């Protein structure tokens, strides 16, 4: 079992999302959040989902994870419909959802422990190996509150990885980290992905992070969210930070930025409060459309 873990691409699944719609509230309070969302998460690819603030990215993740049932449409994992949460699709949450009452070791071994498919000795070995991999062996008996932000994110990553999920769903996992730690975590994550080649969906609101990580970029529209455009990012792997100044990167960024700008204009017209800042950012850029420049992505004022 432990061997398969390290073989690139093995055990990865393909997720197909067709026509998913989701709304909340009843009667006059009804709000449509997702509408006719269709895309595929290809096997062994890192797909990044990016969209304007509050557009329903988290709702989409909740639907894919099976926490919420879509009002319409279907989510298929390797051809089988998704209807409830399960260890084949694991979510790494915003901020982190490590259980504060468990030590790092207990957190990481939680999945195998409750699934009761592996004997204790085996998952103990597996857990230790993964903790070693992310450099947390010395911290196995610490509680999450004793770990730094970066360590917490790494622990959460391996808590998901130990279950060998077919798909990993990363819901803005590096949000709230400071710029330096964030850059280190991005590098860390991209190395891990390049070694394992699982199917990953990464949700973010930072364009720079998105392009740096992605094989494929999904740009969402405003609420109700649909897939506006899919951009293939053909930067070579392994990715290096030096690529952030390359021509291919700049081109890709420009294309994505224009699309996001368009969405922001719409959301401003619809009177969204959060869009005010975004539009201002865009109007500053609008003075010179030829140069797509500042590092930038749609912001999210409130956690969803």
């Amino acid at each position, binding site marked *: 079992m432990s061997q398969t873990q390290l073989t690139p691409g093995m055990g990865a699944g393909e997720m197909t999302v067709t026509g998913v719609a989701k709304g909340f509230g009843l009667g006059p309070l009804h709000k449509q959040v997702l509408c006719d969302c269709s895309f595929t998460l290809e096997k062994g690819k890192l797909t990044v989902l990016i969209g304007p603030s509050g557009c329903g990215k988290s709702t989409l993740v909740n639907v894919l994870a099976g926490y919420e049932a879509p009002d319409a449409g279907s989510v298929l994992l390797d051809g089988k419909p998704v209807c409830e949460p399960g260890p084949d699709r694991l979510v790494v949450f915003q901020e982190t959802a490590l259980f504060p009452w468990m030590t790092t070791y207990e957190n990481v071994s939680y999945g195998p422990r409750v699934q009761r498919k592996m004997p204790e000795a085996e998952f103990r070995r597996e857990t230790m190996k993964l903790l070693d991999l992310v450099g947390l062996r010395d911290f196995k008996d610490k509680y999450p509150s004793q770990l730094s932000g970066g360590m917490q994110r790494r622990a959460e990553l391996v808590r998901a990885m130990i279950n060998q999920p077919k798909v990993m769903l990363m819901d803005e996992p590096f949000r709230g980290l400071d*710029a330096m*730690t964030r*850059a280190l975590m991005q590098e860390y994550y991209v190395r891990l992905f390049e070694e394992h080649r699982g199917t990953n969906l990464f949700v973010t609101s930072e364009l720079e992070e998105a392009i740096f990580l992605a094989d494929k970029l999904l740009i969402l529209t405003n609420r109700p969210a649909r897939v506006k455009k899919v951009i293939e990012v053909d930067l070579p792997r392994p990715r290096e930070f030096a690529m952030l*100044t390359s021509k291919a990167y700049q081109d890709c960024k420009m294309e994505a930025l224009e699309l996001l700008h368009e969405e922001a204009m719409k959301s401003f017209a619809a009177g969204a409060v959060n869009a005010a*800042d975004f539009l201002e950012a865009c109007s500053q850029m609008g003075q010179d459309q030829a140069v797509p420049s*500042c590092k930038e*992505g*749609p*912001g999210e*004022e409130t956690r969803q």
Partner: protein
Amino acid sequence: MNTAEKIATNERGRISIRNVTKVYDPDGAKVLAVDNCSMEIEAGEFCVVVGPSGCGKTTLLNAIAGFHSITSGEIHLDGELLCSGQKRTQPGSDRIVVFQNGALFPWYTVLENVTFGPVVQGGVNEKDAKDKARAMLGQMGLEGIENNYPSEISSGMRRRVEIARAMMNDPSVLLLDEPFRAMDALTKTVVHQFLLDVYDKSKKTVFFITHDLEEAIFLGSKVYIMTTRPAQIKTILNVDIPRPRDFRALSSATYIRLKKECIEAVHEEALKAFKAGEREMA
């Protein structure tokens, strides 16, 4: 360009930091936070200090602001001794701090927050202060939110109001302690532009702390890159991108060159800090 800046500025706000050392001594475990650090900041300079978290940048800022004492060395503001190993001047409205997570008083409206400084310092009646505040908010493009409480406006707005609150007091120096941390990239670009506009208009001395290199180069005239604890200056960078700057500066050749130049240095320190942090926690 430096000379041009000097002419535009009034001569207030020259900070000189000489051989400052700070040792923390909680529970007997001596921790050297800042080690023999010297800087000369010209009046009207936009000075940015970059370093990994916990490296002692904030200690330096707190010493200038008057919140902390230092162990040895001297800090002067416009030739006057601010603090040394023996002396500490109380915080005052000539050096105003904008804090990491924001410190707008949640129990006051935006207008009350902005007029806080003039009102407590006395000498102005409340109506004049309010008129001045309204005019200032208007100039900065912040009208229409005077009577909202800070919790009701967006985080980008909040930070801008806080800068306006500082500017109301016409300080010699503006001290910014990682003010845009924990903001997403988009909101950041807005507040960056805002801060640059404020700086270009007022030419106040700005002492800005961050650990985001891009932000540092984009905003600063001079960037000091610090080592991990104990904080020392590793590199000084003169950013000669002309002002007024806007987002276009981010794609200029100078910017990319500067970024390339020090990305390695910063990355190295970040890694060191990261490792050191883990060792300490083990």
